């Protein structure tokens, strides 16, 4: 198929040798056509920098064995300027790169000449590109390169559900072929059965710590996956506290300094590290081939994600991967059952995709202009060839173009210092200084403002500015498994020193926490609706489920359960309403805010709400009569737009868009030393823009992004539609077992997960249990 010139998707499980497989057609073509020139023959594009080096190493073995003279090199942000220049002069035949470095190559003026003999583009971990701005950027550049020189695309992925989507993404044509080899060996998944009672709430695996440790001891090498960096830090510390067999345990997460991460990765490969506690930073790529056990600590949150993680173990195709799930509370136990079932039935989530974002387009247009002058109509046509942008309308394109040119303000444009100059029908860049700014600011991943963390004379990693800003000198916190005492911030460096003091804060690292997938939430609902008695449960969970049935009920399928109760809180009574949509944290947060507004409209004073992946708990000053009114669909969606404009979350989103689109530059030449990189307060810009230029393209992008990412509008409306006329209200005398878990979180307020809090939680949990038992 590949020989016939079709684009191909190679869908094979990890360990199936798909990466090498993907390179076979290029190697074959290279040999058969006697390709001799020093030119780019194949581009390999991966979402992970680390993967480029790894794949190069793996590829060199067969190439050297076959004694073919193919020059293979990597080009990422780690490549030296010298080597980059050398690669342009004498291009390697196979180049391993990332979407960003590829975009930079595409912005070169000699792009036509550079790729004139290109034959293949390989895109690895294809599924990561469907729903990300990185994927948008990549698709734009692939489409542009195609208009310069036709080539074949080979997409690689281990987890693909929606193969049609994958086909469309890699080329708009209908001729894409799929090669799929799936492992027949199902993974062996077990849920850890602890001797101890599974907590009703919280996210701590402490109850099962010794059992986790004894599992680690059984295997030569293991990965313990957790969901957030904070959990990684805590688990790592607690394991070392009981590590009397001196197992070599390491920690790996995305905030750690690059060298530290690389060191850990190397030590895993060489077998010096026997167990690593990791976040999603180890989800993708890197074929180690020697991991015997994967443990998922905390809920899996998504089936595809779990499959990906399990796939990290045992990279041979004929033996089952072994995985143990460790739920950290009762809800998570049910979620683990659901996830296990889904994996066994190979019932994976459909990949989601997103329409091409216009901030990425703005960045791309600058790149195009730097490379070549262009005609508006031609560029528009070319952009629509990129699948995420197939629906781009001319008006939005023109607005984006005008934004790139002069800022896109209707009354007062920055004509004098425009980025682009018109020459007849052509657009070209006005000032060469734009090239440096573009290069320094390329990319679609905007992180929260980070400070580099320095201890003694070495850097440990990056830490969120807002976390540090909440610390005073002398406060202690954990990072990279070390207990540190905060000293001071100078510029963009936070200084700390090693301490032996207890009671640390844990940086809670926003964003590590994925919401429960729609797919998994459906299965969880199903399990709950069929009553948990049908499932084989550990005793502590049985108790939990019995209590729920005794005092309230489990929601039936398609039923929406609302529980109301009151509790004495000191001298006064608080009214509570617990709802259980099982729709994931993001949806619940939004719903929570909206319902809060509704409660106010009923003339009842709300105190607030807490939400997790399963439920929302509201508290207020007096009983609410009209509960149906609170959840009526039409009104809620109306409220949503009002709420959205006020929420601070949208301002964070606007900051990202302002940076990606190039409204403000994060990095400017000669500006690195000043510390704060973004010189403007984007909150102020957002506000002034809304007031003076409400139809500005950046505001439109922000709203569209917010509907998708912030509130998941589709999921919310589907939910509201689903529950219409299916609301079941249980008026209770006390909190039900389901509601209890949120009561804990309510009392915790700020999720500081240090020892003190856990102690407090356990105490509260025991009190509540006694209360129930006393009945």
């Amino acid at each position: 198929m590949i020989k016939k010139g079709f684009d191909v998707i190679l869908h094979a499980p990890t360990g199936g040798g798909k990466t090498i497989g993907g390179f076979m057609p290029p190697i074959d073509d290279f040999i058969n056509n006697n390709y001799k020139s020093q030119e780019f023959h194949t581009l390999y594009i991966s979402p992970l920098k680390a993967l480029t080096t790894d794949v190069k190493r793996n590829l060199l073995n067969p190439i050297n064995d076959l004694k073919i003279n193919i020059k293979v090199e990597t080009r990422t942000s780690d490549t030296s300027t010298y080597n980059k220049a050398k690669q342009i002069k004498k291009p390697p035949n196979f180049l391993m790169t990332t979407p960003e470095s590829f975009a930079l190559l595409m912005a070169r003026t000699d792009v036509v000449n550079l790729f004139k003999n290109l034959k293949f583009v390989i895109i690895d971990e294809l599924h990561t590109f469907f729903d990300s701005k990185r994927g948008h950027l990549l698709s734009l550049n692939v489409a542009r390169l195609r208009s310069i020189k036709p080539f074949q695309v080979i997409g690689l992925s281990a987890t693909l559900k929606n193969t049609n989507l994958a086909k469309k993404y890699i080329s708009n044509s209908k001729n894409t072929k799929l090669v799929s080899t799936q492992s027949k060996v199902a993974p062996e998944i077990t849920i850890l059965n602890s001797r101890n009672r599974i907590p009703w709430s919280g996210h701590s695996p402490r109850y099962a710590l010794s059992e986790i440790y004894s599992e680690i001891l059984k295997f030569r090498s293991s990965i313990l996956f957790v969901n957030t960096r904070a959990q990684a830090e805590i688990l790592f510390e607690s394991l070392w506290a009981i590590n009397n067999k001196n197992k070599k345990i390491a920690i790996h997460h995305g905030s750690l300094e690059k060298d530290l991460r690389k060191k850990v990765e190397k030590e895993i490969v060489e077998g010096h590290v026997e167990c690593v506690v990791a976040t999603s930073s180890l989800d993708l790529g890197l074929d180690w081939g020697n991991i015997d056990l994967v443990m998922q600590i905390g809920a899996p949150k998504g089936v595809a994600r779990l499959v990906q993680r399990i796939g990290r173990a045992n990279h041979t195709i004929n033996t089952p991967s072994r995985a143990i799930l460790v739920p950290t509370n009762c809800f998570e136990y049910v979620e683990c059952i659901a996830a296990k079932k889904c994996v066994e039935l190979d019932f994976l989530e459909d990949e989601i995709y997103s329409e091409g974002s216009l901030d990425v387009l703005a960045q791309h247009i600058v790149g195009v202009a730097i490379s070549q002058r262009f005609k508006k109509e031609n560029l528009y046509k070319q952009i629509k060839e990129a699948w995420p942008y197939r629906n781009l309308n001319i008006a939005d394109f023109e607005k984006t173009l005008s934004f790139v040119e002069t800022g896109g303000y209707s009354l007062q444009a920055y004509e004098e210092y425009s980025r682009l100059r018109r020459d007849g029908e052509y657009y070209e860049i006005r000032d060469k200084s734009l090239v440096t700014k573009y290069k320094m600011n390329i990319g679609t991943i905007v992180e929260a403002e980070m400070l580099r963390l320095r201890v003694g004379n070495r850097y440990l990693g990056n830490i969120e500015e807002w976390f540090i800003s909440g610390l005073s000198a002398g406060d202690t916190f954990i990072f990279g498994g070390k207990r540190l005492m905060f000293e001071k911030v100078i510029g963009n460096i936070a200084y700390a020193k090693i301490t032996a003091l207890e009671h640390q804060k844990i940086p809670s690292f926003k964003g590590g926490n994925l919401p429960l997938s729609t797919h998994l939430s459906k299965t969880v609902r199903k399990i709950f609706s069929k009553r948990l008695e049908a499932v084989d449960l550990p005793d502590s969970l049985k108790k939990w489920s019995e209590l729920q049935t005794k005092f309230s009920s489990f929601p039936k399928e398609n039923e929406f359960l609302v529980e109301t109760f009151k509790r004495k809180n000191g001298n006064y009574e608080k009214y509570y309403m617990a709802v259980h949509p099982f729709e994931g944290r993001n949806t619940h947060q939004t719903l929570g805010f909206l319902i809060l507004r509704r409660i106010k409209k009923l003339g009842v004073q709300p105190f607030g709400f807490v939400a997790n992946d399963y439920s929302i708990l509201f508290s207020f000053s007096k009983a609410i009569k009209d509960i149906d009114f609170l959840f009526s669909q039409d009104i809620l969606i109306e409220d949503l737009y009002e709420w959205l404009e006020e929420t601070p979350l949208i301002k964070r989103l606007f900051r990202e868009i302002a940076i990606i689109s190039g409204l403000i530059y994060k990095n400017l030449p000669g500006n690195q030393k000043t510390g704060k990189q973004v010189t403007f307060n984007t909150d102020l810009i957002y506000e002034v823009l809304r007031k003076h230029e409400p139809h500005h393209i950046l505001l439109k992008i922000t709203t569209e992004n917010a509907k998708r990412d912030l509130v998941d509008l589709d999921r919310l409306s589907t939910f509201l539609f689903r529950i219409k006329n299916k609301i079941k209200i249980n008026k209770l005398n006390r909190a039900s077992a389901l509601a209890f878990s949120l009561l804990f979180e309510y009392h915790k307020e700020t999720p500081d997960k240090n020892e003190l809090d856990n102690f407090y939680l356990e105490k509260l949990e025991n009190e509540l249990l006694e209360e129930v038992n006393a009945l």
Partner: protein
Amino acid sequence: MHYKDVIFANEKFSFFANGELYWPSKKTLIISDLHFEKGSFFSESNQYIPPFDTIETLRQLSNFINNHPVEKIIFLGDLIHDKFAFQRMATKSKELFFKILENIDCTLTVGNHDNIRFLKDIGLNLTDKVVIDGICFSHYPSINQTFSVFGHFHPKVKLIINSRGIWVACFVLNTERILMPSYGYYTGGLSIKSTQIKKLFDAQYEIFPLAKEKIYKLSLKK
């Protein structure tokens, strides 16, 4: 409009939540560091910041004037961000600014951003400092005067709310000095803990953070 009254040099002054300093007995308004057209200044480096900062600042100023008797305004320096500010300024903003200059006696104590060449002959008194009743108003602190009101530093302070720090602009006051917050829309700031500000307020002092249209008072003792 939210404000707090203070006694300074035996006179009553009011600190307003938007950063105005008002002297009721003299019907005088003092504002500092407006940095007109800071937003559009960055177009030169291809950053097309929304060019609405000047009009925002001026509307806020007009609003104050319309609601309080103001016979004299002292701009404490850094009125414009750069020498071409007036060239870039939108007609609407210019009209509003010149209307204020026409109707009210306005003085600018020149700051480091102010290029006199471009501020002459527009109906603005230009000077280094204004002294009224022994109080010296100037862009930089007047070290050898007993009472000094000045700007230049754009003081800001970190408030910790829900274990998150947020930075807000503030007035800083002791018995001899008032440090004014910046009145401009896009202007950043310098922490009151920085050495430059600390050495001016070494003994007991008070800060008045401006947050969400309200002004607060914090007393700090050394």
